[in-house]
């Protein structure tokens, strides 16, 4: 297997893909958002229970490639307990990692996604769950999509 591929499919990613965390519907959710990636057909629903402005609980479900599913799973573990602005700042870090391949100084599981940057077509897979969460936080009823589209 090439170095690029093993960078892309890090152990952390494979693990989250095989044993996703916080997967399923959240009966107590007070915010829901749906994300889809029309080019691949990847789908991701995010369920939040907001307590004030903090994410008290979060789960996701949907279907998609290992990158999209692992990223959504890892995302849920990272954003729990955080406020909207904190999640946005985390997303900016994550976006920088997957687009530049540069990893942050502090140790973070998000760095596992650095290998995505050599596969530009897969960046959308990695950000799908994040987009859905950001929309859920905003209370945006519109579906998150990785493409700009009009009906």
């Amino acid at each position: 297997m090439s170095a690029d591929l093993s960078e892309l499919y890090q152990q952390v990613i494979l693990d989250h893909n095989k044993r996703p965390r916080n997967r399923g519907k959240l009966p107590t959710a007070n915010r829901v958002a749906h994300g889809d990636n029309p080019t691949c057909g990847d789908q991701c629903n995010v369920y939040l229970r907001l307590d004030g402005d903090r994410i008290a609980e979060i789960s996701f479900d949907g279907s998609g490639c290992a990158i999209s599913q692992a990223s959504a799973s890892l995302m849920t573990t990272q954003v729990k307990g955080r406020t909207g602005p904190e999640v946005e700042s985390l997303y900016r870090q994550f976006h920088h990692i997957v687009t530049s391949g540069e990893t942050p100084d502090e140790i973070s599981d998000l760095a596992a996604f650095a290998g995505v940057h050599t596969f530009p077509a897969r960046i959308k897979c990695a950000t799908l769950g994040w987009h859905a969460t950001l929309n859920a936080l905003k209370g945006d009823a519109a579906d998150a999509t990785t493409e700009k589209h009009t009906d």
Partner: protein
Amino acid sequence: MNPALHSALVAGPAADRWKNVRADFPILHQDVHGKPLVYLDNAATAHKPRAVIDALVRFYERDNSNVHRGLHALSMRATDAYEGARARVARFINAADPSEIIFTRGTTESVNLVARSVAATLRPGDVILCTEMEHHSNLVPWQQAARASGATLEFVPVLGTDAEGGLDLAALDALLTPHVKVFAFTHISNTLGCINPVAELCRRARAVGALSVIDAAQSIGHGPLDVRALGADYVAFSGHKMCGPTGIGVLYGRRALLDKLAPDETGGGMVVTVDYAGAKWKPAPERFEAGTPNVADAVALGAACDYLDALGRPEIARHDEALAALAYEKLSALPGIRLLGPRAGGARRGLVSFAFADVHAHDIVTFADEDGVALRGGHHCNQPLMRKLGLTSTTRASFYVYNTEQEIDVLVASLRRILKFFGSA
């Protein structure tokens, strides 16, 4: 190339052409990620033989000019080449007359043209009949036509949990009422690989007075196609899937129908006389070709027709069926695989698409690419069918004249490695 396969398929003068077929395609001779390219994405687009590339270059180097209205030498040569290509395509599909060939950008534009033009003749109460296996290009334009005209859109169901039963022909009796004005269907499904009984479908449409519209995108380059033997009213296809360039395609329409059909786009080149109040249309095909046409690509499409006829289209059909059957058989042995479309021995040509429960198509395509194998993963512009089958995506391997049995072995070996990596085998 495939000595065993080809001695069984081809004898006589075409045998030598088949032996050298890979040498005709310059693009095949490259490595991808350090591995020889194994191109199995032919249903998306096919590669171009040297003869087609040369035709394109020759036109731009020698004959390039605008067509029809010119009186100088180059313009006359360009016009002859363009109209010659039209006649060549007419022969390729056995149309009664070159004027039945309208050049478009491709299948999508061809279907849009006929759907928009026919929509103007539809009323509420009329029915447009499609099938559940249509590519978005032969579905969305009909949804729009239904919306614009008030007609209803109905669908011939697809049978079987893996769509292995193809179209539900028994349902046709109830669906094909005299209210049906258009019946639009694909010849070969780009997702299932099944060959639909298009001659029968055209006959059944005609029996109730409905127009038949065939999406021949996946069949045109993969075997014989005789529009008159089929009794088709309209046939749409793309040049780029039959060794021709991108940006050129065809709408075939029966002359008697085209003469009655209103133009879709208007402008220069499609009018006889114009004054400030209005204009009179030329007859088909010019009526449907407003503006400067895609002359060079049409000429190269003519060269693609020559190339495919020289290989022999019945031979191409047998080759593409043999490879699809072999791939189906070899892929069947992979643990956990779900194969779509006709089962072993069924009417399948050119492609196989499949899914695994725990490994997603996009991971497969990314991994296979590292082995030099070009596949396609996704919904293949077939979202409603995918949903019906409970899938969001499949991986598709599609074959053409230059693919070999050995390449199927490379594919299978690559898939085995991928399954192992993801812990599924």
